């Protein structure tokens, strides 16, 4: 029986009170609810606090380099598209160092689930600003405050026609779990930007701060309307919408690759005799 214990991993090295605990819990719950076994999924991560998550649960795991989880996940999916692949990453990892891969993954619509623990800060390296850090925020290395405009992952997602773009809040467990499940069953690339309080380094975007602002997107909202989605994506400040901002039904990258119709590459048998015929062409 798959139960929560099935997904027990190392003891987390996160700070007490960190928003990551709630995300980890939701993550495990969803896997249990979907009745997936640890070996039936692969979790890919980069480097950062969020990226440690795979060690705190069980599953096939590729914990790679800072910023480079998405290409690894893409490679895995191309080699074995029967394997659900989830990327757990931070705002720095994914929107900072890894920005170029994010755009490429959205364009490909590779069937990878991207869960971004967005604490609006670099946690593991002790509090430098990330792309989602608010303007004006001061840090040791930015004594005059951040002057780059805050990055809006939802707006980017809508602009790049991302198949599934949603936002949730770590402390709203039911909401987060619901979205994670929807992302898992969505056919194609799915991004959830998860607002995650960092109790140690982010003294601005606290539980309180988020709680006061987040609201559930109303059920009537149509995430297929791209222009409306863009408006909604821009909403950030006193009110922050959580839920599915944008969704479409583009075909996935995998299903458009002729070589994959015969099944996952990893299970296609290698026929070593072909080469002889190929060499003939050079005579």
């Amino acid at each position, binding site marked *: 029986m798959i139960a929560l214990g099935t997904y027990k991993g*190392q003891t987390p090295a996160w700070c007490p009170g960190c928003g990551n605990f709630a995300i980890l819990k939701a993550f495990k719950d969803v896997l249990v609810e979907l009745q997936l076994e640890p070996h039936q999924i692969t979790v890919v991560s980069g480097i950062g606090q969020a990226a440690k998550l795979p060690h705190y649960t069980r599953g096939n795991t590729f914990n790679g*380099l800072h910023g*480079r989880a998405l290409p690894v996940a*893409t490679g*895995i999916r191309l080699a074995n598209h029967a394997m659900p692949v989830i990327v757990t990453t931070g705002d720095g990892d994914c929107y900072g160092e890894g920005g170029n891969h994010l755009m490429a993954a959205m364009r490909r619509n590779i069937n990878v689930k991207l869960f971004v623990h967005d604490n609006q800060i670099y946690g593991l390296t002790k509090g430098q600003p990330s792309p989602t850090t608010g303007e004006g925020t001061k840090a040791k290395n930015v004594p005059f405050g951040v002057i780059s405009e805050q990055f809006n992952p939802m707006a980017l997602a809508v602009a790049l026609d991302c198949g599934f773009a949603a936002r949730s809040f770590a402390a709203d467990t039911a909401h987060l779990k619901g979205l994670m499940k929807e992302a898992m069953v969505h056919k194609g690339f799915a991004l959830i930007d998860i607002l995650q309080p960092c109790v140690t380094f982010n003294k601005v975007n606290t539980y309180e701060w988020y709680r006061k602002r987040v609201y559930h997107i109303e059920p009537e909202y149509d995430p297929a309307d791209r222009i409306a989605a863009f408006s909604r994506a821009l909403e950030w400040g006193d009110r922050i919408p959580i839920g599915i901002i944008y969704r479409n039904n583009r075909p996935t990258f995998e299903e458009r690759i002729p070589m994959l119709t015969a099944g996952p590459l990893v299970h296609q048998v*290698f026929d070593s005799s072909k080469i002889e015929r190929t060499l003939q062409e050079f*005579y």
Partner: protein
Amino acid sequence: MDYSIKIGGEAGQGIQTIGDALGRVFVRAGYHVFSHQDYESRIRGGHNFYQLRFSSQPLAASRNKVDILVALDRESITRHEKDLTVNGRIIYDASALKFKNGGPAFLDIPFEKLALEQDGDKIMVNTVATGAVLGMLGLEPDLILELIADTFKNKGDHVVHANKNAVRAGYEYARLHCDTCTFAVAVDEVQQRMLVGGVESIALGALASGCRFYSAYPMTPSTGIMNYLASTESEYGVIVEQAEDEIAAINMALGASYAGVRAMTGTSGGGFALMVEGLSLAGMTETPIVIAMGQRPGPATGLPTRTEQGDLEFLLSAGHGEFPRVIFAPGTPRQAFHLTNKAFDIAEKYQIPVFILFDTYLADSQWTVDSFDLNQVRYIDYRLRGDAFKNQQHYRRYAYTETGISPLAVPGDASHVVVVDSDEHDEEGHIIEDAATRIRMVEKRLLKKLPLIRTEIAPPDFYGDQEAHVVLTGWGSTYGIIKEAVDELAKSMSIAMLHFSEVFPLPDLGLFDYVSFLRKTKLPLCIEHNATGQFSRLLRAATGFEFKIQINKYDGRPFTVEELIGEVHDRLGNI
């Protein structure tokens, strides 16, 4: 019999089409062929050439001399006329070049006019020129006509027909007007051989090794591998993915390899620079990967379409931290094929990154090869898959073993999880911080594997006089040039070639003590296409042997055999 043909012209004029067609014909006619190219980094204009040699004897390099110069532009004549042999001929289209020379070496063939007469298409100028060369040589036109039928069959009968006529027109014109031509072609026995280039050989080696995934970002001189593999995608069930950048390319390949398929990437120095972090990741996670690294002159963008051996040391220690790697530097297409196969075998067996270090010169040169020896191809699936994986009681990705090699399982094939980590990790693959585990993992990953890997490395190639006074040492693509130089020089001195195609780790001295051999010879020379003598430094670091005299070239062009001979002569005073 040994003729050299040079086709010169602007980028976009189709000199490669002519050269490739002639090469194919000569091979089918039973000759040995060698060709190489020289071109600028532009799509139209400038000056490029294609040097093609054919002979009844095996060939390994180009020669300076030109027997037939096909001049598609004026510059071809200005630049290359001086290399013409006594009985050599220059063919050109006086009206197209707006230039006329009545000299006995010059033969004006109205390529354009003849092409237009066939079908009104200037594109066929190349076909006419190809026919003309064959006409001058007096080689029967059947083979080229056959080739044309093959090449254009997808374009319809009309195109085939027109091109055949164009060949004939050029052929007849040349036979008629080159009445003073004295070319004598003959072949003892017609043997079927392959004509194959460096990049294709690497790609073929990958296919023969069961490579199923190739992700790369375009970059000269590696793009040919991607193109060739892409052309076989559906036949071989291989996925070729153009990544958003080189960082993604290597990380994708690592992802695919982790997921259970043989994976490869290819690039050149600048692109590889971006892969260096991923290389280190391969080292830490022990994920097999083959990397084809095509050198061109640097630093930075350098001379993008030219050749150099300037990245050996870069590869020796690219990546932060310490982990095993293997570097092969093939000198011929045959080596390229077999070493690519060996690269996959070693990468999978030891779970390490293995390089095929080539360069533009090897990439673009074509050789005749009797065949690739398919019996020598090794394909062992070292992965733990399917039932074998299912039958494991426990599974730990980084289990400590005698050899340092831990079982590499395919995720999903059994109910065990496969965990890999770029942090230092325990046997299960999870992050650790303690010193004891760290030490054992360094031993496992690095120190235990190193001596085993060394046993896989073959001794260098030796060619020539066993008691040679002069030894020309080289590595990688200079193989053919050095070999031909040795053949010439052997007429007047005691000389040999020592060629390394398995360059790192350097071969053990057990089977062949090349260091003692070098110490014994009077004039050991190291020949490299770089400015500082990188292989020479590697050899000294590993063995203590120092080449006191080196021969280096770093202008982006390969040595010609004649140049190298000159360089050797210049140094004979040191004996």
